[in-house]
């Protein structure tokens, strides 16, 4: 009972909008008797004896045990709606014209009178629609071009060029987020505190690129810090023929090992997604990278940058070896093109017998990429696949024959079709 009385007091103290028109009579009886009848009306029911918050709480709350089980989360959860939205004072279920409330008192020279207008049958539907739109679970949707590696999360997304330093502007630069993660630290006074750490790479796609790490209390601040730091640490990389690295190389940072291979034009970037973003920032278009050991993202980035910086140009290699460096391209019928010549060339007698002369072996420092054994596809070992192959043996050339017939006659027919026409044609005639 006591709680009921308390609740009533609450209602009185904070009158809600839908109570405004119906002032509780029993309260004002003491000093405003003129306007009121003596009979008391009990305007109390379940819906108006409690405030809206409490009512909503009763609907949406989940028991402690349920919350532990994960109830009341996700798409099916009930949400609080603002039932006042879309409702205007002076309008209601019955469409009345109230001069001075929902309409002007004087329109033109005419004094408007209170009158009933025709009902709007769709009013309720509109209201329900509006209320439904409030509760619908709306996920942040990005266009496929804008989105990063997964969904609407930051890694892989572009966050624009770094902020200008003084008068220097970063024109043509673009920054990609590689990592954004919360770091949790226990503090004696504050308990568990949350910091954000971001790693980004920025580049202009023409050889200039850099990466940066930023930490802040909030994610956007961390990203901004990382981006600006990356802009201040740009490095210049030479790109071979504007599309790939100068040679294969091995690089490592901590336990992360990367084998990078030079590839031909049109091969594309076949590597870890972070390495792909870095390559795009630098302007490398064709490359293969194989990762071994730890896949710690910061280590990957650092290892790859270190590897790129330690590349040697063809001239340097030729000078190191004191031999001509000659390029053979399959598309040019293996015509030897001398890409670099040293100032002094050694003769065959001057080369020691145990020296590695193979270019790849020399450049990879005798390291070899581990090639895993290729397993057959899961269906290839099954008996039904053999049956299929045997059956298909008869039809193996049919597709080609059909194509040739179409080229020759414009349809699938042979020189015998005129003599022995298909039964279908007979039916038509």
């Amino acid at each position, binding site marked *: 009972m006591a709680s009921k009385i308390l609740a009533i007091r609450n209602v009185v103290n904070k009158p809600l909008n839908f109570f405004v028109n119906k002032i509780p009579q029993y309260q004002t009886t003491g000093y405003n008797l003129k306007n009121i009848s003596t009979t008391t009306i009990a305007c109390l029911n379940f819906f108006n004896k409690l405030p809206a918050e409490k009512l909503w709480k009763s609907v949406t709350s989940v028991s402690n045990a349920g919350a532990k089980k994960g109830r009341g989360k996700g798409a099916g959860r009930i949400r609080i709606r603002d039932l006042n939205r879309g409702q205007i004072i002076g309008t209601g279920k019955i469409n009345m014209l109230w001069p001075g409330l929902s309409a002007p008192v004087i329109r033109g020279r005419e004094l408007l009178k209170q009158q009933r207008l025709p009902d709007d049958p769709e009013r309720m539907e509109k209201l329900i629609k509006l209320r439904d739109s409030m509760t619908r679970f709306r996920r942040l949707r990005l266009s496929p071009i804008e989105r990063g590696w997964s969904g609407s999360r930051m890694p892989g997304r572009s966050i624009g060029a770094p902020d200008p330093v003084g008068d220097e502007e970063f024109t043509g630069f673009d920054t990609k987020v590689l990592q954004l993660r919360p770091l949790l630290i226990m503090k004696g006074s504050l308990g568990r505190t949350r910091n954000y750490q971001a790693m980004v790479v920025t580049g202009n796609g023409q050889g200039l690129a850099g990466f940066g790490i930023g930490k802040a209390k909030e994610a956007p601040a961390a990203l901004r810090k990382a981006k600006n730091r990356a802009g201040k640490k740009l490095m210049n990389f030479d790109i071979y023929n504007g599309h790939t690295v100068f040679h294969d190389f091995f690089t490592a940072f901590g336990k992360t090992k990367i084998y990078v291979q030079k590839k031909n034009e049109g091969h594309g970037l076949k590597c870890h997604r972070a390495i792909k973003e870095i390559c795009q920032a630098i302007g490398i278009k064709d490359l293969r990278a194989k990762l071994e050991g730890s896949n710690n993202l910061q280590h990957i980035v650092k290892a790859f940058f270190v590897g790129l910086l330690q590349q040697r140009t063809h001239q340097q290699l030729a000078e190191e070896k004191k031999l001509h460096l000659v390029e053979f391209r399959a598309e040019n019928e293996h015509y030897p093109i001398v890409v670099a010549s040293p100032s002094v060339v050694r003769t065959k007698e001057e080369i020691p017998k145990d020296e590695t002369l193979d270019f790849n072996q020399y450049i990879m420092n005798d390291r070899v990429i581990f090639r895993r054994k290729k397993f057959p596809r899961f269906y290839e070992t099954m008996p039904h696949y*053999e049956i299929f192959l045997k059956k298909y043996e*008869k039809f193996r050339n049919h597709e080609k024959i059909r194509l040739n017939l179409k080229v020759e006659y414009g349809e699938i027919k042979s020189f015998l079709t005129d003599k022995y026409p298909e039964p279908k044609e007979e039916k038509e005639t």
Partner: protein
Amino acid sequence: MPLPPASGTGRYFAKAAKSIRLLRHGCTNRPFFHISVTQRRRPNSLPVIEQLGSYDPMPNMDNEKLVALNLERIKYWLGHGAHVTPPVAELLGLAGFFPIHPRSYMTAWRNRATERENLAKEAEKAAEDKDA
């Protein structure tokens, strides 16, 4: 290659009799023959010892029947005493490798006879039509 190749996986018994014969490949309504050497007393569904050629009995666009013969290997197997079945002997005869098989002459003679009969019948019919 899931199916065994047409040539050269059959079991070979040195002393068993061999035969050079036509083996029907192809499908329903579309005959196509391999000329193969096989064990004489073996069903035709088994792999052959060696394929020696092919024969396409359906005339092509230019009204030709194509026959391929590996004469070098045919000579080898004949030297080893392989038996030649009449259809193959007929083909070899037409190719000028063997003397013409008597059956070819018989077929030709019969065809000519039926042709002559048909002509005579037609002539009779024409004469009757004229009389009528």
